[in-house]
């Protein structure tokens, strides 16, 4: 997405090429801290994120670190618990799309032929849709909610994993050691699971972290449009939408904090992906 590219451009000004490890460390620290926030949410805040705990539309103060919203909910605790929501949706959808895309890509690339043709056509037609539009369409059909949102997002990213796995399998299956495994009588299943799959992992890790960054934005966008996670579940995208109406009136804190955290989490994953790509992909190193 353009937003991610934009951030990466800024990042390049700060962190020069050839320092992939630094990027990965920065990315990991961001992601890990947000995961910690999500896990230890009850320890970080004593307010219930779905109950009115004070006056409405209060600016940030010591009592309410990020202020309160229209209904008097504490924004800080909504951010903290919102991390849980977004992470659950993202993890769930990634697991779903990975566990569909990867095996199909592996089968398709290994056996080729008619199965490969059919699967490729299906995947390419999904891929042809703009991701967000497709997610909106699916979400509109199956309805809102945490699991449904995860499903809608998962469908968008199945082709990404599929194409990656298929392409890699194509090149790996031509390697001599695969032929050697055939020559000792190994079954196709053994070759795929024990010999091709491990060789897919480096590439899949990069694709994984880059598309997770994308997934976060899609999740936030769906909720922002009212098609994702619904009230009163704390969710950054939803809070962004709810706060938008109050911006002209000067209540800046309602959208600043959810927006900031969406950006942070996205940047975290995209740094990991970019950094890993730089470390694992030798061709990147010569690029200016």
């Amino acid at each position, binding site marked *: 997405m353009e937003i991610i590219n934009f951030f990466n451009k800024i990042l390049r000004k700060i962190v020069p090429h050839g320092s992939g490890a630094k990027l990965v460390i920065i990315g990991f620290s961001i992601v890990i801290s947000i995961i910690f926030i999500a896990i230890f949410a009850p320890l970080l805040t004593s307010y219930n994120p779905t109950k009115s705990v004070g006056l409405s539309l209060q600016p940030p103060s010591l009592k309410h670190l990020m202020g309160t919203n229209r209904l008097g909910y504490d924004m800080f605790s909504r951010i903290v618990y919102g991390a849980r929501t977004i992470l659950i949706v993202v993890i769930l959808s990634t697991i779903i799309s990975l566990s569909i895309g990867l095996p199909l890509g592996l089968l398709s690339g290994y056996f080729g032929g008619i199965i490969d043709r059919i699967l490729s056509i299906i995947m390419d037609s999904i891929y042809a849709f703009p991701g967000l539009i497709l997610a909106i369409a699916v979400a509109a059909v199956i309805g809102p909610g945490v699991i449904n949102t995860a499903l809608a997002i998962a469908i968008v990213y199945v082709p990404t994993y599929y194409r990656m796995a298929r392409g890699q399998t194509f090149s790996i299956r031509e390697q*001599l050691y695969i032929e*050697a495994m055939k020559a*000792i009588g190994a079954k196709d299943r053994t070759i795929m699971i024990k010999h091709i799959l491990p060789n897919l992992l480096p590439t899949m890790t990069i694709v994984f972290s880059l598309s997770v960054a994308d997934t976060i934005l899609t999740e936030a966008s769906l909720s922002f449009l009212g098609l994702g996670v619904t009230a009163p579940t704390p969710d950054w995208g939803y809070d962004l939408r709810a706060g938008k109406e109050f911006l002209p009136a000067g209540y800046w804190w309602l959208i600043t904090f959810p927006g900031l955290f969406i950006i942070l989490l996205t940047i975290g994953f995209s740094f990991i992906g970019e950094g890993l790509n730089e470390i694992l992909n030798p061709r990147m190193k010569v690029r200016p």
Partner: protein
Amino acid sequence: MEEILSIEKLKTYYQTLSGIVKAVDNVTLHVHKGEFLGIVGESGSGKSTLGLSILKLVPPPGKIIELNEKEMQKIRGKKIGMVFQDPMTSLNPLQKVGEQLIETLIVHEKISKKEAKEKAESLFEKVGIPKERFNDYPHQLSGGQRQRVAIARAMIVRPDFIVADEPVSMIDVSLRASILELMMDLKKEFNLTYLFITHDLAVAKYISDRITVMYLGKIVEMGTKKDVFSKPKHPYTLALLSSVPVPNPMYKSERIILKGEVPSPINPPKGCRFHPRCPYAKEKCSKEEPILIETNKEHYVACHFPL
């Protein structure tokens, strides 16, 4: 002599964009139990394809081997082992070398992991790699050691027959003899039969009992090592032999330089496939294709005018 493998009229063709490549064309070959059969020929003569066809690792052009994929999987490795040319790429880079051996065992035998490990370790010592290297990855071993692992992998389920596709051509010259000796030792110990594919006549002479010479997908001459090397019948064999350097400065050999290159296997010459390059070619050679006939006992040649 007892036959361990018999190939009748094997044809392996590859479909390419520019036409059909007849990599192996009508090859009949009988391998005797316990022998070291060397297959020699230039690049493109179809010797590697012949090796792969035996294991049915290339798509079969016809019903040559009347076994389906499932049945072949039981034969591959168990009955026929294969050693590949390049030890750098024939081992999985992400798997420990010891595990690659264990895996081969588990594919074919009902055996516990522990037993498999013991077996693999003892074979490791036999092929001359210290047991400590068992948990190394392929890139941590030298080329020679890797080829030893590849040989061990082919031997571990005790096949009777090994197809070795240029197993020493990528090995450093200083190590070749030791790898060849290892293969000979294993042959004695496990009562093996080898089909040894090579383009190196010196290697073939060193190791083979019988020699088969291939040219453009056909067998041109076949016989015992002594017959082929001392009394070659086919002009091509003669030319090949004259290219081998002799380690005697006083010896003046008559060099036969072949004109041109190996013709394209897509469109092989009519008649005898060697006739455009043959110094002895006559008119008949360009018209009629010679068949493999026995001239002396156990000495076959495919030439209208054998030397």
